[in-house]
C-alpha cells in the first residue's frame, strides 16, 4: 500500500520539477537546434531561451510566466494499492497544484470560463485534468504536464475528419496548413513539439495528439514505419518553412513531430493536432509498491517512447 504522504510529496515535486526544470530530451533538442541554426538572431533567441531555462532550475522559478493548464497522467499498475484510493490521489494532486501556486512555481492562471473568477490556486471545475492508463504491475507512474496558453489557444490544437479518399496527403496537408497558420508571428511559441492523433472519434484523436505533444520523448519515433515516415516527412517539411523561434524566421520550427494512432470508422479518419510550445514542460516519477520513488527522464506513456 502506497501511503498518502508519499504520493502527495511525489505529486508536489513532480509539479515543481515540471514547472521549473527543462526535460533532458528537450534540452538536447535545443542544443542541436542552436548548433545547426544559420540565422544569427534565431540562434541568439534559442540560446537565450536555453540559458534562461537553465537558470530556472537553479533559481527554482517557472520556465515561463505562463505556467499553463495543469494536467496529470497516471500510469497505474493493475495491482497498485493507494492509501485512500484514487479519489484521494486526485485530492492530493489538487493540493499539490495549490501548494505549488502558493510557492510561486505556478502562476494563478486558471479562471472561470464565463465570470473570469480567479480562485488563486489553479483549482476549479475539471481542473486539474486527470488521465489514466492501466498496465501490469503494482506501482504507479505520475506525469505532470503544463500546456501553455499560447500553444493551445492560437490554432495549434485542431481537428478535422479526413476522407479515406484523401488519405495521407489529406492528413499532411491539414497538419501543414494548421501549423503554418498557428505559428504566424510566433503565436504557438515555436519551435514546437507537434503531436498528431490519427483515427478514433474526434476526442480520441485529440487526446492522442495532446499526449503525443506533451508526453512523447523528443527524438523518439513511432515503431510502425508507416507512422514513423509521416513523422519524418512532416518534421522535414515543417523545418524547411523558415518559421523559426517565435515565428520571426529561422531554421528550426519544430523540435519534433510525434504521431499516434487509433483504428477508425470506415467512414473517415479523425485527425487532430496539438502543439506544445518550445519549453515542452513535463516531469515524471515512479512510485513502487514498497514506497520507493524513482525520477523518470520522460513519461514513457506510449510503451518505450
Amino acid at each position, binding site marked *: 500500500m502506497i501511503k498518502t504522504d508519499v504520493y502527495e510529496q511525489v505529486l508536489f515535486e513532480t509539479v515543481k520539477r515540471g514547472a521549473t526544470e527543462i526535460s533532458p530530451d528537450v534540452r538536447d533538442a535545443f542544443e542541436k537546434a542552436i548548433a545547426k541554426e544559420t540565422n544569427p538572431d534565431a540562434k541568439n533567441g534559442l540560446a537565450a531561451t536555453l540559458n534562461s531555462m537553465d537558470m530556472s532550475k537553479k533559481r527554482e522559478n517557472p520556465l515561463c*510566466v505562463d505556467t499553463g493548464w495543469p494536467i496529470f497522467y497516471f500510469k497505474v499498475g493493475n495491482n497498485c494499492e493507494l492509501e485512500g484510493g484514487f479519489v484521494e490521489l486526485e485530492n492530493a494532486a489538487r493540493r499539490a497544484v495549490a501548494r505549488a501556486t502558493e510557492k510561486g512555481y505556478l502562476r494563478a492562471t486558471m479562471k472561470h470560463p464565463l465570470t473570469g473568477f480567479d480562485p488563486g490556486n489553479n483549482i476549479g471545475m475539471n481542473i486539474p485534468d486527470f488521465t489514466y492508463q492501466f498496465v501490469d504491475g503494482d506501482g504507479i507512474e505520475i506525469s505532470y504536464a503544463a500546456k501553455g*496558453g499560447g500553444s493551445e489557444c492560437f490554432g495549434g490544437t485542431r481537428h478535422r475528419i479526413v476522407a479515406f479518399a484523401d488519405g495521407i496527403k489529406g492528413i499532411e496537408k491539414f497538419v501543414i496548413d494548421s501549423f503554418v497558420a498557428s505559428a504566424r*508571428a510566433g503565436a504557438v511559441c515555436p519551435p514546437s513539439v507537434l503531436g498528431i492523433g490519427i483515427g478514433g472519434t474526434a476526442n480520441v484523436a485529440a487526446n492522442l495528439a495532446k499526449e503525443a505533444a506533451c508526453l512523447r520523448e523528443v527524438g523518439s519515433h513511432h515503431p510502425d514505419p508507416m507512422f514513423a515516415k509521416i513523422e519524418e516527412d512532416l518534421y522535414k517539411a515543417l523545418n524547411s518553412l523558415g518559421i523559426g523561434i*517565435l515565428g520571426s524566421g529561422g531554421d528550426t520550427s519544430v523540435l519534433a513531430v510525434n504521431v499516434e494512432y487509433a483504428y477508425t470508422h470506415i467512414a473517415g479518419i479523425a485527425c487532430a493536432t496539438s502543439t506544445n510550445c518550445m519549453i515542452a514542460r513535463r516531469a515524471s516519477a515512479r512510485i513502487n509498491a514498497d514506497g520507493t520513488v524513482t525520477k523518470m527522464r520522460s513519461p514513457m506513456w506510449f510503451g518505450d517512447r
Partner: protein
Amino acid sequence: MAEYHLKAPLTEEDVCKLKLGDIVYISGEAFTCRSRLQKYIFDEGNTLPFSTADRNVLIHNGPIVVKEDGKWRLVSFMPTSSIRFEKWGAKSVDEWNLRMIVGKTTMGDETAKMMKEKKCVHVSPRSVSPNLWIDSIEVQDVYLYDELGRIEAAWFFKLNDIGPFIVDIDTEGNNYFDALDVEIAKRRETSMEELGIEHDFEFTKLY
C-alpha cells in the same frame, strides 16, 4: 538591421527612426496590461487611474509578482500575445498616447493603422527568457490590484535595458510578419510538392 537602446518615455523621434526588423532594448518607465484591464476601461466605462503621459510604453503581460518583506519581487516575466488584444489596440494607442507596445506575436490592421496615425510601434521578443529579464526590471507600483487581481492589474515597471525585441510594426503601419508570410508561403509550396501533395489538392467535402 540596426540596434537601438531606447530610454522611455519615448519621443516621436525615438520611434519614427525604427525600421521593421530592427532590434531594440528599452530602459525607463513602462506599465503592463492584459485584456481584463482594457475591458475594464474601454467596455465597462472606467477611467485609467494613472497618467500615461510619461509612461508611454505598454507591455502586454501578466507577470508573477510576490510581496516579500513589504516589497514587490518579480518572479517571472514574459510578454504575452498581443494579437488577442486587437479589439482594444487602436483605442489604447490613441487614448493612452502610447509610443510602444511590447508583446509576443503582433497586432492587427486596425491597431497598425492607428500606430501609423499616432506614431507608435509594436515590438516582440525573440526568446522565452524570463530569467534574462527579471533582474533588469524593478517593480515600482501597481494599480487596479483589488479590482482586477494580481495578474490582470496594471504593474508599473522600471526597465533597465531589457531586450532584444524586434520591431514588427513600424510607424508607417507596416508589419514585419507580412513579408515573412510571403516567404513561408513559397517554401510551403515546395514542401507540399516534395510530399506529393498536388498544387490544386482539395479536401473531399464531408461537411
